[in-house]
């Protein structure tokens, strides 16, 4: 085919493939060639400027004196210096004052809240929701219903050391029958509607005593002192299948909780079905934990329900 060129005048190279594929003898556009050479020149300048060329021992360091770690440290230092210039006194006070004292100082309190949002967002919101509005099976922090107490020290303790609620399966002695459980669940639900004294729930009320539920939940369904047990007299659910459960959903959920308990373990292993409820400890988890836990405690306290 090379011998025969049906397109002699179009300036092709004379090679023809598959009957009609051919290439013209045009040079590449001038701007393209110039840019192509410029690319090489750019490589040289770049390599002079940045660490780029490996050598037998190490590598060229470049005129800029740039390293990734240095860039990071310099940027971070700039930020730290800026923060220090503006807020060093406040940060110092957060370190030396107790959380309760911080609460007393409107300026410091406002500062703690403002600087907590992101910490809360990154460390807490996954479980407690942005703004502490809660998630199914993770308690709301923005209300005044506390499992472990809403005083600033109690909140601080919750964050520092974590919390693990405990509730035995089938009552304190583990001896409730399925029928008992249904009755006491109905009674507990009635408590949440303020109807606990209705005669129709008498059976359940008896089970509540027999199972010694009242030891933790209090004689009227409201714990006498915060020690982890849920308040059963309101409709703030601790364990729910979704954010807006129906009454039927909650009946099922209650029966489940009472049947399997909360954090019930045997030989160090959770038993199947038991509710898992654990607030992790943060004293080793947060950067600068000492100050940041106080900051967060103030923030949580001021979400709406602090006492």
């Amino acid at each position, binding site marked *: *085919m*090379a011998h025969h060129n049906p*397109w002699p005048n*179009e300036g*092709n*190279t004379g*090679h023809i*493939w*598959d009957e*009609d*594929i*051919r*290439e*013209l*003898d*045009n*040079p*590449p*556009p001038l701007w*393209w060639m110039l*840019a*192509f050479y*410029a*690319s*090489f020149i*750019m*490589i040289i300048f*770049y*390599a002079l400027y*940045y*660490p*780029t*060329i*490996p050598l037998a021992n190490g*590598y*060229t360091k*470049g005129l800029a004196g*740039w*390293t*990734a770690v240095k860039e*990071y440290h310099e940027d971070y230092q700039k*930020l730290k210096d*800026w*923060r220090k210039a*503006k*807020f060093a006194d406040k940060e110092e006070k957060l370190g030396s004052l107790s959380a309760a004292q911080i609460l007393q100082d409107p300026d410091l309190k406002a*500062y703690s809240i*403002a*600087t907590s*949002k*992101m910490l*809360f*967002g*990154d460390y807490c*919101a*996954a479980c407690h929701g*942005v703004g502490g509005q809660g998630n199914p099976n993770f308690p709301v922090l923005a209300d005044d219903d506390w499992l472990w107490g809403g005083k600033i020290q109690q909140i601080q303790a919750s964050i520092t050391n974590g919390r693990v609620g405990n509730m035995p399966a089938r009552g304190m002695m583990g001896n409730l029958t399925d029928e008992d459980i249904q009755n006491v669940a109905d009674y507990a639900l009635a408590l949440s509607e303020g109807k606990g004294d209705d005669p129709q729930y008498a059976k359940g009320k008896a089970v509540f005593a027999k199972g010694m539920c009242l030891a933790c939940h209090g004689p009227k369904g409201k714990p006498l002192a915060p020690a982890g047990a849920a308040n059963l007299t309101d409709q703030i659910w601790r364990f729910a299948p979704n954010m807006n459960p129906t009454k039927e959903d909650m009946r099922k959920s209650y029966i489940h909780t009472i049947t399997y308990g909360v954090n019930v373990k045997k030989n160090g292993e959770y038993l199947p079905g038991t509710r898992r409820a654990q607030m992790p400890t943060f004293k080793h988890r947060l950067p600068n934990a000492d100050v940041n836990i106080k900051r967060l405690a103030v923030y949580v306290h001021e979400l709406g329900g602090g006492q």
Partner: protein
Amino acid sequence: MDATTKPQYDNGVVQYLSVGAVVFLVLGTIFGTYAAFELAYPALNLDIPEITFARLRVMHTNTVIYAFGGMTLMATAFYSVQRTNGVRLWSNGLAWVTAILFTIGLLAVVLTISLGMTTGKEYHEQEWPLAIAVAIVWTLYTVNFVMTIASRNKEKVPNVYVSNWFFLGMMVAVTYLYVVNGLALPVSLFRSYSLFSGVQDAMIQWWWGHNAVGFFLTAGFLGIMYYFVPKQAQRPIYSYRLSVIHFWALMFGYVWLGAHHLQYTALPDWTGSLGAVISLSMIIPSWGGALNGMLTLSGAWDRLRTDYILRFLIISLAFYAMSTFEGPVMSAKTVNALSHYTDWTIGHVHSGALGWVAMVSIGALYHMVMKLWKTEMYSMKLINFHFWLATIGTVFYIVAMWVSGIMQGLMWRAYDEYGVLAYSFAESVAAMHPYYVMRAVGGLLFTLGAVIMLYNVVMTIRMANAKQTATAGAAAAA
């Protein structure tokens, strides 16, 4: 021309691979679109482990890259190598074996990934037995291709056409990169551990990873471009010299780029810089290919109005030029510090994957279907419709990801008036939701186009077969 003087080619295996490519395009884009909807509405994973995002994403990448991209590469390579060398395949039987093994291997890859078996290496998730199978199939493909070129009549075809160089470059690079990255110690049938560790493993991984893009999805598809653009446009390639220069520049340059995926990590500083600067210097060589393709059309631009297949080919070059500018820019340190880990990367990938790889493949596949079945398409209107769905879908996708990616990067680094990060990670995720929806809708449009293509191809083949039986019947009756 007299039919008897025309060379005869092996078409059956190309027909099989072409239809396979279209089927996998549909499947892969369905996976991608569903994955995109899962990101917007996580409940859509229905708590079924096999289709959770983590697995579906990898099923998607393997299906689009290897199944759709790979089949397209095999179909177009087997098609064009015969025609540009004026000979049949070196071994038609071997080509069939390759094609069938490839199909089975890919189905096994997607299946095992959905079952949770993975090496955890991106674009190399296949566990070792399947990785070995892939390497063998790839070698068979390469051998057949090389031997076909070698068996040409060197009197009649003294020179090897440029499309073949690109295919060859891809085959060589992909073979050694895939094999080196795959070196691993098996501990059971579906579990192995890489021979490399730590930062070396990361570097080897992206040495391969970037070249899954650079050679598999770029060099190979430039081979497609160099055959199908002049064929469809019926115009000579603009410049032979340009093709030589940009070919060698890409071949030497691309293997250096991998480190641009690992800047600001434990990788030594010089390695990242080297990757970045070679990336920047790849803009012009890449544009060489786009330019050569586009200038091939000079004097024939009006044909874009009537030739819908040509439209796919040309718009693919526009996207190619755009994404080969964007990628190098993203390698520059200051840009990378913002763009890395964000959706911008995903947008960049898809302006290449949808705009370039898929579009050029679609153009080539339509072209081949008409030639292989010796017929017009069942419906040219549907091709035009497909063109618009694909283009609008792609634009939706990449615009959504640009906005969400840059927004994400800016939110991560924003400080408030106290010098504290202004947004938590969860807030940046929430802010991306509308763009995730937009991307998913773009994907839906693109997928719809692929489904229409499949329909059009199937109807075309049925039409061609019916015509054949009719003429055969008429001949028999006469």
